[in-house]
């Protein structure tokens, strides 16, 4: 039993540079848990938002008071109950998974090797060439898709170290209980309603990231990329034999 499972591994090892997986097990597992909890957070976030799809700036805001933005969504109360239950459940899953991922990224060479861009790659010329190629929907070569380019690296770093922390902190700033423990958090964002508004825009930014991410995955070859994120390898090992 052990032998038959071992054979294809040796075969690939000999012929290709695929001996270490494209994505490590921790990245793969945390990726899919985050994907599931992101979807749950998005759906439940919309359920909470539609109870009052109006955004304000400052501490307070209500119908009759001046708003910052009136979203073109009808007011629909009655969904925020399950919305909140699901939102906080998936927030816990997402935050704990994120902590595990960041811990892994710091303790292993993951962040340093895979996400930190090389200084030489940070020139405008190189970055604009990548963006131009992406906008022309130029399919990356097999070799290019073995590592992340500078734009991908910067984007992932921004999502992991800016957008995620910001959406967690603005979420906590809205909590009256947390505001009583750490008043500076709510006041730092300019008030409970400001925190709610920032929370909304960071969510929009994350949805935009998700759309571009999905588009790039499709461009690079959906099956191969998704397989790499599930099994660790972009090509099916048995087919290669």
């Amino acid at each position, binding site marked *: *039993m052990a032998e038959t499972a071992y054979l294809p591994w040796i075969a690939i090892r000999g012929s290709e540079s695929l001996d270490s997986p494209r994505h490590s097990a921790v990245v793969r597992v945390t990726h899919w848990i985050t994907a599931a909890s992101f979807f749950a957070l998005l759906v439940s976030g919309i359920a909470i938002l539609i109870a009052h799809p109006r955004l304000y700036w400052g501490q*307070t*805001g*209500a119908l009759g*008071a001046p708003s910052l933005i009136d979203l073109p969504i009808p007011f629909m109360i009655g969904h925020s109950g399950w919305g*909140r*239950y699901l939102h906080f*459940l998936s927030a816990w899953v997402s935050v704990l998974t994120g902590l595990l991922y960041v811990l892994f990224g710091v303790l292993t060479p993951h962040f340093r090797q895979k996400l930190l861009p090389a200084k030489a790659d940070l020139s405008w010329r190189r970055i604009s060439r990548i963006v131009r190629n992406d906008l022309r929907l130029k399919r990356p070569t097999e070799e290019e898709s073995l590592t992340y380019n500078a734009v991908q690296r910067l984007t992932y770093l921004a999502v992991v170290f800016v957008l995620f922390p910001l959406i967690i902190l603005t979420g906590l700033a809205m909590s*009256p209980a*947390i505001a009583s423990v750490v008043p500076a958090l709510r006041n730092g964002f300019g008030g409970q309603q400001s925190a709610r508004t920032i929370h909304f825009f960071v969510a929009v930014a994350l949805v935009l990231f998700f759309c571009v991410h999905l588009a790039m995955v499709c461009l690079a070859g959906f099956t191969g990329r998704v397989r790499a994120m599930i099994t660790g390898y972009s090509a099916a090992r048995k087919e290669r034999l």
Partner: protein
Amino acid sequence: MSERLSRRKLITTGLTAAAGASGLGIAGRIADRYGLIPPDDGGIYGVGETVTYAAQRLLMSRRSLAREYNRSDISKIAPVKGEPPEHETYQSLLAGGFADWRLKIDGLVARPSFFSLAELKRFPSENHIFHQACEEGWSFIAEWTGFPLSYILNLVGVLPQAKYVVFFGFDTNFDAVDKQTIKGKWNSIDMAEAWHPQSLLAYGMNGRELPPGHGAPLRLRVPRQLGNKSTKYLSWITLTDTVKDIGQGFGAGGVERGFSWYAGI
């Protein structure tokens, strides 16, 4: 060899799972003793709810204070959620300026009592300017006049077994003979929230009598939780060691309509 390895792996996994499960069981019992389990802890959503409630209870102390604002921060607009009860008794009490209204406090207390509005107004009063957010998303700042809930709790003498303070307003059928048939916006808070210095019973708002829409003659104000926790139109307060025998047993009528019991979010 591989078989033996997998058997060893199986035994290790089994032992880890058993240790994990009994660890969770012990953790659950400790958490329950320290009041870290909310009444709506069942189901998959209950897991998230329990973690949130336990985490916040461990983070918060009596010194975790909701921000007190200035008079200049008071909102011009203080929306009212829902109409005052159409209940016949409530309407006649309202018409009579609540002169015949009495607040009943009973349950796990040394001296079950009734208080008139005039008696409550003779308690040492306090003014607090709090931010209040509705779970829908809107919010306002208002000044509340009343007295700490802890004042009246000390007056009636809380028995050590008490774990929850339960609030019934005129928007519930609190006078039902069978407590399990009680419906509406009744609510309960744990003792940590009840003894907190900013948990108020308010009879005044923004320098005037509490308007009917905002919960006249008396409402709860717990500024460290969402507005739906601050029960309006109070009639009866009872202390208990369990909320399992009231309504469907989730600690608040709102849970039966899908809203979580703990609203510290």
